[in-house]
């Protein structure tokens, strides 16, 4: 019943959201493996080969192995989810994703008792990723979630955008979408998923632990040390677009706040 309620809420929230244009979403990206400019990914990501694609699922799972993408997709139900997307840089968009719930994939692999965390890795293929020539971050890009965050019905594995296959610059062929966390948590072009009982290292946290925490939940009350997170600039509204207040958990407070009950969100930022 809890789940049904959740889906209902999500559907309601979706109606109010006006998605950004496909062009905006596909041309304004952070994907540092292709360069640090916002336009670099759309310019260079075509160099990345996404077929064939497989995902290694390992660690504390019943059925570890290399899963071919088509084998995964044949088991999953693709649905549309219109989510707010809030970048840690204080801009935001609304994105109509297509994808399946991460929980379904994890259930397919069989999560073992005692597993507490899920970690993810992005493809690291320097010959196809010109941005990796510069050590902007330590490659491959890594992200992680607590298991309950990963199993949450809002947590999506996206395969498409506007009903079309995901453009490479947006993380084709398979990316994570965690709508209540800053965008960098939603790791792109995933090649590995590992279940473990230890909090995994994550790229931005490794690069600068003072600025980027493991949780990185959208939180208007906890500022980035170099800028305020209290408000955001919604993109797509042109040059005179008004800033708007950032919502707790990016507007998904009702759905996810219970995951963090009793935690000091200033400490676990």
């Amino acid at each position, binding site marked *: 019943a809890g789940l049904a309620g959740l889906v209902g809420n999500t559907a309601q929230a979706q109606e109010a959201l006006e998605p*950004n244009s496909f*062009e*905006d*979403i596909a*041309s*304004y990206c952070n994907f*540092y493996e292709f360069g*640090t400019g*916002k*336009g670099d990914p759309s310019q260079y990501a075509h160099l990345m080969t996404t077929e064939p694609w497989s995902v290694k699922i390992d660690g504390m799972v019943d059925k570890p192995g290399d899963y071919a993408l088509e084998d995964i997709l044949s088991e999953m139900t693709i649905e549309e989810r219109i989510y707010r997307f809030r970048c840690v*840089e204080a*801009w935001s*968009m609304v994105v109509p994703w297509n994808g399946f719930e991460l929980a379904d994939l994890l259930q397919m692999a069989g999560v073992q008792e005692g597993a507490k965390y899920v970690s993810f890795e992005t493809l690291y293929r320097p010959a196809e990723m010109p941005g990796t020539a*510069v*050590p*902007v*971050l330590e490659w491959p890009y890594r992200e992680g979630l607590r298991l309950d965050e990963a199993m949450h019905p809002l947590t999506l594995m996206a395969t498409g955008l506007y009903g079309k296959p995901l453009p490479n610059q947006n993380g084709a062929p398979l990316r994570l979408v965690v709508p209540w966390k800053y965008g960098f948590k939603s790791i792109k072009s995933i090649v590995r998923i590992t279940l473990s009982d230890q909090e995994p290292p994550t790229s*931005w946290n490794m*690069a*600068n632990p003072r600025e980027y925490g493991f949780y990185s939940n959208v939180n208007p009350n906890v500022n980035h*040390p*170099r*800028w*305020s997170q*209290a*408000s955001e*600039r919604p*993109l*797509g509204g*042109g*040059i*005179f*677009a*008004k*800033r708007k207040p950032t919502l707790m958990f990016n507007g998904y407070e009702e759905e996810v706040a219970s995951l963090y009950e009793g935690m000091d969100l200033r400490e676990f930022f």
Partner: protein
Amino acid sequence: MISPLNSWIRRLPVWVVYLLGVLPAPWLFYLGLIGDLGADPVKAIEHRYGELALQLVIAGLAITPLRRHLGLNLMKFRRAIGLLCFFYVSCHLLVWLVLDVQILNQILTDILKRPYITLGMLSFIAMVPLAVTSNNASVRGLGRRWQRLHRLTYLAAVLGGLHYVLLAKGFQVAPLIYLGMILCLMLIRVGGVLIDWFWLVLDAVRCALVRRLS
């Protein structure tokens, strides 16, 4: 190679530099307005203005070394380059205030609490007296003090370069190149002064020796 270049430069009126230098500002704004600068025109304009200002800082700092070490004389454009730089810094600041942050309260806390913004603001403040005294009357009126005042250029330049380095996420190369160029150009200046001193001292020692020996 240098002397025909110098004579071509002599014939180029300064107002041409002013005109060509100012044009990118309204042009960029226009491109942003018609939606030609991508999904985030505000950041695009803000960053381009900032980059242009830093490029002009570097151009301005290069003028004396170019003349001293390569014999290329761009001296007559130095004031134009300096004022254009101030113009772009002002545009950059205005876009940040009005189109980017928008909220007065947040602007003030940003200036006080965010080191890269504090440095950027200090750089701008250091440039104000430079811009105000960039005219013939001030040069005449201030005399030797004008030279001393305009050493603020170095402070403004370094603060501007640091401002860019500190705002980057992760390890990024472009901001480091800008700061590196600014520091190199300053080193060349300081180095030049040191070399001048070295020759002066050597000359004095030589004179003293000659006098002693004769």
